[in-house]
């Protein structure tokens, strides 16, 4: 081979490696200036709804049950004003092959890899996506490598990530595990280069489009059962794919008025690339460490353009606390008889609080669950937290300091959904455009692109650009 495998050298070959590993020409969608044609990219490189549903059906994905959480709804109503307390439903995505909604993304990505003739697939993920890619690769007879950020410097790993290693290996994948750090991406590139495998990134158009079936099914199931579309759909948000894909599917089904709400766990103060902080989180995704940076700058992924762009779809975003999510996870098990999560329980926690603001006859859908197991259950998570010096007690979740303590709400009335400032996020997005593209002036096309990205008026965009020194 003889290639220079230093960090700098691999990164210098990034564009070429990605191109070979996806055979997708992103250039064709680029506009003059800062923008690109998002819809053209989704249309030209993705699959139609019918094609995706057929592919997924053939590979153990989709048609998951929509379950009414009657007891959790009743519990929420005990704390809601008269007439309030929307019906809470959850889409049981644990029923997919590999046990999470991520199978929707992987099913399309791996199908695409097989169609293009690749011998194997690689994905960089510490999450359920690894299991999903491994499972789909097994079905297609493709080789699979999953690259995980797994351990701290002492080779101590989050129990949740250790489980994700196990399940990937159970599906026949090779798992490459790394200590904490963003350089994981370089190892990912190096493996793509060495193997010639397909980059089954989470952020490709087909990876995101695969989730559209989830939103579509939710809208369809509600229409069929209740004669109307859901009033709101809640999605846990991290890299943005879950929310973007679901929202697009909901809209495609015709549910134009359904509100799309993002939810994530408040992990303020913890640095995502810190060796010390790494094992002081009691959740591994769906938290502010991923969601906030991705909301305000989506193009930070392992693809030239990220197909997950939440500001195009998200009406509101709320944060919840770790202790609140553990409380609701327990409620889901003992009041509803579903042992699920942790994924999905972040948005379920937010749903519990938000349902109390909505009318009784309204319908609120939480868009996912995931399989629970050793490592993922609240018991190993709490055991791990305590081993790392995190104090666990009952009190007011408002006092929770991520990494220092984990506060169970004293009672369910203390579970809150805290509003994230969407306006501030939109302003940050504009600021990031100016900074990352070194914008000095803005063309009409640039302005239009930003308007589409953040769903704001021309006046708003022009004013924000001016605030950042752009004419």
């Amino acid at each position, binding site marked *: 081979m003889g290639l220079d495998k230093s960090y700098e050298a691999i990164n210098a070959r990034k564009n070429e490696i990605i191109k070979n590993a996806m055979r997708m020409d992103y250039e064709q969608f680029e506009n003059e200036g800062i923008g690109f044609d998002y819809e053209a990219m989704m249309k030209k490189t993705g699959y139609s709804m019918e094609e995706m549903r057929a592919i997924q059906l053939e590979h153990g994905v989709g048609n998951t049950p929509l379950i009414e959480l009657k007891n959790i709804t009743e519990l929420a109503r005990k704390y809601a004003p008269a007439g309030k307390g929307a019906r809470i439903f959850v889409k049981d995505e644990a029923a997919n092959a590999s046990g999470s909604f991520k199978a929707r993304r992987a099913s399309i990505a791996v199908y695409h890899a097989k169609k293009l003739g690749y011998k194997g697939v690689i994905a960089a993920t510490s999450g359920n996506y690894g299991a999903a890619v491994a499972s789909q690769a097994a079905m297609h007879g493709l080789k699979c*490598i999953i690259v995980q950020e797994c351990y701290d410097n002492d080779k101590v790993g989050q129990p949740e990530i250790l489980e994700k290693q196990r399940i990937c290996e159970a599906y026949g994948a090779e798992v490459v*595990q790394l200590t904490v*750090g963003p350089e994981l991406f370089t190892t990912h590139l190096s493996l793509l280069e060495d193997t010639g495998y397909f980059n089954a990134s989470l952020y490709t158009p087909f990876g995101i489009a695969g989730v559209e079936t989830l939103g579509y099914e939710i809208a369809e199931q509600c229409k069929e059962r209740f004669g109307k579309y859901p009033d709101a759909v809640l999605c846990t948000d991290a890299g943005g794919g879950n929310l973007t894909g679901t929202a697009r599917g909901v809209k495609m089904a015709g549910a134009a008025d359904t509100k799309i709400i993002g939810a994530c766990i408040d992990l303020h103060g913890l640095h995502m690339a810190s060796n010390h902080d790494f094992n002081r989180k009691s959740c591994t995704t769906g938290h502010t460490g991923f969601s906030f940076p991705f909301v305000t700058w989506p193009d930070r992924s392992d693809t030239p353009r990220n197909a997950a762009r939440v500001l195009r779809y998200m009406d509101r975003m709320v944060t919840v606390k770790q202790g609140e999510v553990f409380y609701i996870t327990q409620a889901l098990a003992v009041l509803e008889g579903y042992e699920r999560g942790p994924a999905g329980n972040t948005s379920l926690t937010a749903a519990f609080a938000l349902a109390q603001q909505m009318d009784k006859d309204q319908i609120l859908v939480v868009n996912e669950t995931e399989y629970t197991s050793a490592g993922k259950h609240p018991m190993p998570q709490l055991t791990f937290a305590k081993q790392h010096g995190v104090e666990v007690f009952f009190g007011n979740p408002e006092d929770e300091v991520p990494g220092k303590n984990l506060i169970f709400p004293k009672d369910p009335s203390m579970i809150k959904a805290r509003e994230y400032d969407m306006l501030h996020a939109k302003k940050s997005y504009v600021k990031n455009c100016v900074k990352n593209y070194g914008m000095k002036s803005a063309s009409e096309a640039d302005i239009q692109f930003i308007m589409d990205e953040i769903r704001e008026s021309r006046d708003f965009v022009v004013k924000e650009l001016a605030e950042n020194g752009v004419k």
Partner: protein
Amino acid sequence: MAKAKKGDWVQVQNVVLKAGHRAPQVPEDTQKCDLKLWVKGIAQHDGEIGEEMEIVTVTGRKAKGILTEINPRYIHDYGDFQPELLKVELQLKDIMFGGDK
């Protein structure tokens, strides 16, 4: 010291980047650590823990590194019993069904 035989299922460790040579955006505490990598595969020769080992992974890829484990065990489990979860359970049952006692 435990010894691996050729053909055993093992795990090896590598250093990808040395401490101090990490990506510039990495925070200070992580800068002080090597970026380490672990991967499992079939041992290509006999060797002891701590020695250099060549492996072939399940995808057929050749890799080498320091032998760290032989027949590596999954160590994650359901953890210790957590009384907080029981307290939540009892509270929820009381709020929801307490009146039926």
